[in-house]
């Protein structure tokens, strides 16, 4: 059975910080994607929303919220929440429904309006919620975890502050060429290393901001797509795996890991298993990829992803970066969109925006940041509470 679905359309609302209602952004992205696909809203028979938890009830039921804003059409609806992985989960909900033959055309939308500063847990006293407890008991923020991973690379592999800054410099060069990016400034090494230390060893310009933004893709059956496009981009693999017990790497929002006292640690750690599942589904490997979009919540975290998605062995990411392999023009460009470094994170939209970048690259529509002859790409991402997210697109 062919497990491909087509990405017939992709659209975004530029990332920024405007404080408007998230629905406005979502509708802009949806209309852009529908136009790109060359179809009408009334052709959509399934709306798959990625949820935002920061915009009240309309955000919790974002699929229906977008459907109502576009005009009730009777389309089936679902809303997915998987933290930062919500977009991939929403894509998978649409893809599986199409592959089951239960719909032809699905609209996958994520949009967010974010508060200023650190992402904080939901309000109220919640002593049974680890996401609340970690803040209350020890001031453990999201950058805490990014910093622990960054420092671990320094201790284990000799990564340097300059390496982390170089990731930001690289991504800012990419983002400067992307009209959808929030930050279009090209940073220098000196500027990054001169920015304030937030969570040592990570500095302000190395930690992703929170942004407003929206992204949307139109997924269809291959049969439907052939009537509208001669050579559509395909989704060839989607991974939404969870960890295997015992997971012994500290993960947001936990204050502790599983114990490997009586069960051995799995051969493939969680973050490696995310891309592995997508590769397996697509029948492809890292060597087949032309580009990758990974979740650079911090500059240092991008280096972990090189290893997690199989671009190199553990401990070799710094060499890949220093050799220019992951910059535009290199062997395997990473975050050609500019990544979170240039976008800031709009949680429910981010995994979908990663797929938008793959679509434009595989179609040869990425303008000044085009990866020449791009044939296949992978996205990778992880949502807190154990949500893997990876999408492979081919053409």
């Amino acid at each position, binding site marked *: 059975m062919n497990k491909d679905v087509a990405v017939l359309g992709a659209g975004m609302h530029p990332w920024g910080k405007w404080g408007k209602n998230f629905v406005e952004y979502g509708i802009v992205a949806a209309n852009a994607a529908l136009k790109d696909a060359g179809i009408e809203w009334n052709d959509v028979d399934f709306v798959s929303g990625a949820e935002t938890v920061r915009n009240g009830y309309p955000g919790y039921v974002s699929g229906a919220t977008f459907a109502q804003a576009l005009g009730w059409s009777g389309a089936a609806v679902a809303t997915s929440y998987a933290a930062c992985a919500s977009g991939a989960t929403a894509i998978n909900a649409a893809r599986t429904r199409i592959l089951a033959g239960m719909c032809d055309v699905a609209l996958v939308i994520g949009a967010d309006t974010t508060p200023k500063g650190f992402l904080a847990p939901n309000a109220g006293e919640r*002593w049974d919620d680890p996401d609340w407890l970690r803040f209350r008991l020890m001031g453990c923020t999201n*950058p805490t975890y990014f910093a*622990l991973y960054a420092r671990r690379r320094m201790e284990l592999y000799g990564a340097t502050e300059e390496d982390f800054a170089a990731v930001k410099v690289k991504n800012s060069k990419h983002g400067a060429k992307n009209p959808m990016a929030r930050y279009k400034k090209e940073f220098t090494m000196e500027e990054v290393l001169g920015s*304030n230390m937030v969570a040592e060893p990570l500095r302000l310009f190395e930690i992703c901001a929170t942004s407003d933004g929206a992204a949307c893709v139109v997924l269809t059956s291959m049969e439907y797509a052939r009537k509208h496009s001669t050579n559509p981009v395909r989704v060839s693999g989607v991974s939404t795996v969870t960890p295997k017990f015992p997971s*012994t790497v500290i993960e947001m929002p936990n204050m502790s890991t599983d114990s490997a006292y*009586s069960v051995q640690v799995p051969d493939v750690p969680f973050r490696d298993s995310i891309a592995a599942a997508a590769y397996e589904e697509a029948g492809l490997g890292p060597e087949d990829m032309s580009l990758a979009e990974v979740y650079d919540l911090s500059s240092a975290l991008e280096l972990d992803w090189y290893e997690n998605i199989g671009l190199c062995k553990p401990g070799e990411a710094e060499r890949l970066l220093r050799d220019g392999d992951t910059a535009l023009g290199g062997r395997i460009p990473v975050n050609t969109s500019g990544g979170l470094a240039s976008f800031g994170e709009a949680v429910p939209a981010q995994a979908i925006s990663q797929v938008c970048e793959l679509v434009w690259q595989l179609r040869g529509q990425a303008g000044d940041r085009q990866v020449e002859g791009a044939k296949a790409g992978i996205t990778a991402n992880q949502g807190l509470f154990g949500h893997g997210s990876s999408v492979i697109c081919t053409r």
Partner: protein
Amino acid sequence: MSDKNQVPAIEGWFTDGDAPHLLGSQCSGCSTFFFPKESGYCRNPSCQSGDFKEVELSRIGTIWSFSEHYYKPPAPYIADEPFEPYTIAAVELAEEKLVVLGQMAKGVSHSDLKAGMQVELIVERAYDIDDVEHMMWKWKPVAA
């Protein structure tokens, strides 16, 4: 020491005294350790047990990684004014084969630490509410 009343910031997660311990649980079926305590159902997918005993975890561990924080976190964190930087470490417990986070003792900077360094568990003031000191487990380098 302080004259103020002291209470643990969270009840039942650690012991007090000269040699405090974290309180975890151990599954009666497969012997896996859990911290925080597990009481409902064993999270080892191959174990059907729902029976746990409370255990004191090792109070000496080794540093896996660490980070010093220079910005005041948002609520529900309760920070002293003026805000002072603090360091968080991820600490591996060799016997239980798990990692636990904790703040380092007040005054410990990132430059004092290396991965693999031995640390011990202490209980120290975290914050005040209505003049009552709320105490937390923290890690402190083992004196050489």
